[in-house]
């Protein structure tokens, strides 16, 4: 047993640590009052929508950083080697994100490539996958519907085969960035199928007749997910991703891979919130005395989250089935972040609810995390299911 990173992973982590120290942290004063539009890895496409010169200035700063990262060989870390990426391990990606989270600059090493797009075949590769890797195109993820989320049996959007095409009808709720995405990874079911059986994934480009992004929806987080409508939208069979009826597995794979990032991101956000609290307390001995043990408690909880996250990522690297670990990380991470913010606000008081304040921002952004990509109740359900199926064996050391 060895808790250290491998040499390769450690050297990557070190380089990222240096990049964060030399390139990102010095920019922090500049980002102190940055507009609230740099959330998530597809920020650029949405930020451009604003047309605000102030925002454009930030976009330029971020693009300069991207070029520096590329020059330093810190680009496309999780892209497979076959596509020119570094294909680093899940553990390494956690270590990288952990370093990135030490700065307040919302920067990532690489463009957003939805992991299920590596199932692209034939001409799909040039049309969808490569442009995403090169950062020329972005995608949205169309799964949830007005009456369905975590449960595939409620999915109502249909894909009816008709000659060489499928005809798609239905409504999708909440895909983020769909208003700027070049295409959507759309999940629909074949007529007459039930449950997860028959759920199939399609790649549908914006501008395809019958496909409309009808609106974006304001949320507490300031991210604006969209509503998509498909009315007799004809999509050729060649735009089916993966196999017929295997869509739900793709969805599971997409979710699974992201879970461990959620863990380390929540860890980083919680740390930044606690740092803001410490800054308030450092010069107030009486107040500091009052809250010290609570901060210590949360630091311990965060350490627990960190180790749970590394464990899950490591198991994923061993090609083990990590669905339970992923659920545990998602649940523990997002619920802990919620508690940390609640605590921070108790310490900082009502003035900390200034909209642009660091804690207030996390307060708004964090709320949806306990819902998106599977609410806490679903995570608990997944965990209990494997406990009752496999017993305490799921906790066995391997």
């Amino acid at each position, binding site marked *: 047993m060895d808790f250290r990173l491998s040499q390769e992973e450690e050297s990557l982590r070190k380089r990222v640590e240096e990049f964060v120290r030399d390139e990102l942290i010095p920019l922090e004063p500049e980002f102190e009052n940055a507009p609230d539009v740099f959330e998530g890895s597809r920020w650029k496409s949405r930020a451009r929508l604003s047309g605000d010169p102030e925002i454009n200035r930030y976009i330029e700063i971020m693009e300069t950083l991207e070029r520096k990262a590329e020059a330093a060989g810190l680009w496309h870390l999780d892209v497979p080697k076959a596509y020119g990426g570094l294909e680093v391990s899940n553990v390494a990606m956690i270590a990288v994100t952990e370093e990135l989270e030490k700065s307040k600059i919302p920067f990532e090493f690489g463009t957003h490539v939805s992991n299920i797009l590596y199932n692209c075949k034939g001409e799909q590769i040039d049309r969808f996958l490569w442009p995403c890797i090169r950062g020329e195109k972005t995608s949205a993820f169309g799964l949830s519907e007005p009456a369905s*989320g975590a449960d595939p049996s409620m999915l109502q959007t249909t894909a009816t085969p008709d000659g060489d095409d499928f005809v798609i009808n239905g409504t999708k709720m909440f895909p983020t960035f769909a208003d700027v995405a070049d295409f959507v990874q759309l999940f629909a079911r074949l007529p007459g199928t039930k449950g997860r059986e028959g759920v199939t994934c399609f790649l549908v480009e914006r501008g395809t007749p019958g496909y409309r992004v009808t609106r974006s*929806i304001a*949320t507490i987080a300031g991210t*604006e997910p969209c509503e998509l409508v498909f009315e007799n939208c004809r999509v050729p069979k060649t735009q089916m991703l993966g196999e017929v009826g295997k869509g739900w597995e793709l969805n599971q794979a997409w979710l699974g891979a992201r879970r461990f990032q959620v863990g380390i991101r929540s860890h980083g956000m919680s740390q930044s919130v606690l740092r803001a609290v410490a800054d308030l307390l450092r010069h107030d001995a009486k107040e500091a005395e009052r809250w010290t043990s609570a901060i210590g408690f949360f630091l311990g909880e965060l350490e627990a989250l960190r180790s749970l996250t590394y464990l899950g990522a490591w198991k994923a690297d061993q090609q083990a089935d990590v669905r339970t670990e992923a659920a545990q990380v998602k649940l523990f991470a997002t619920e802990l972040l919620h508690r940390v913010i609640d605590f921070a606000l108790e310490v900082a*008081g*009502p*003035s900390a609810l200034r909209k642009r304040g660091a804690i207030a921002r996390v307060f708004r952004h964090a709320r949806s995390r306990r819902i*998106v990509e599977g609410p806490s109740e679903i995570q608990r359900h997944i965990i209990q299911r494997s406990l009752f199926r496999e017993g305490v064996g799921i906790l066995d050391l391997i």
Partner: protein
Amino acid sequence: MPSVPAVPAVQVVPIVNKTSDVMDLRLSEEENLIQRTAARFVDQELLTREGAYLKQKALFLPPGSPERRNLDPETRKTLIQLAKEVGLWALEFPDDPETPAMSAVARVLIHREFGRTILPFEPACLPALMGQSPYVKPLNDGQLSLSLAFGQLHKTGTLQGIETHFRELPDGYVLSHSQFDVFEPEADLYLFPAREEGSDRAGLFLLERSTSGLSISEKEDLTTDAEVARMTLTYCKVRREQLLGYEYDVAALTAFEQLRIAARSLGIGMRCLADSIEHARQRVTFGRPLASRQAIQWMLADLSVNLRTSTWLALEAAWRADHELPFFRAAALAKKRAAKMAFEAADTAIQIHGGYGVCKEFPFEGFYREARMLRLLYGREDELDRAAGERFIQEGNRH
């Protein structure tokens, strides 16, 4: 025979103005009428306008956090008129001098109903000690607005936090240099507590926005649909009649604010619980309605207990105020519990509504932001708990 320690006799504390011989937790006929009137007003005039208020103004939104929501002035005017017609306006100083001021219990019942909607509209309710002020009429008519600049009190919920001092001058008073946050900064008048130099007793001042030496700066949006700003006082001189009251008045005003927050929180809790029950009945997942899932049932069961306990604490505190019994601690406890309950209710409603829960077209995320703020006003939870614990350690609970 070993002596058995005598059980201390239960001390019955005589209650001032007690009119009946038995405990009676029913609302009086009048209270009942007030509650029904308020409920009907909220149902007919406010909830019917909520959809339009929450509706997104444009199909597509620019990136970044959406603008602060506001009730448009025309609607506000209409609503004030409608509220006046049914007697739900100027609760402390009714236009008709024959009408008595509303009791604290009645005010809790009213604010509780108004809390059921996210529409930012509440009946005007000026503090009783403004009785002599020439501002009462224009305030009640909505021509002027009043804000409580109690920023220094939010931490402890007690007078301990007051740092500004005042000193008597031949023709009035002068307030010491100070700076603090003021919520609802856009007002014409502010009520502001300060401490007298030497005696250290608190005094309550009515400050006009135009008072020289008073400035409002750095106005910013809060994460609730409200504003905050810095109020700075620099050699701020006030006239004699601007000192409205002393120690007790500041504490009583704080307690009445705590009661108002508690009552509004109860409304938030009622709405969130009701809508969650309804949604849980409708929403089917994995072949069954959410309502059939124990995880959901238990959330709602816990919430209902919390709501009920908070309701009775608030009503009892208000009843004590009406009967001239000590009620400050009861009001503080009612506020602490009710605001926390409201936050948890909003959190639960968001969770049960899933993705819709965090959407601005539904009221729950707004309640969530608001309730988080309410929890931090007039005494933070930890401070109130600590004060109660300290008293217990000092005095025991045999009182």
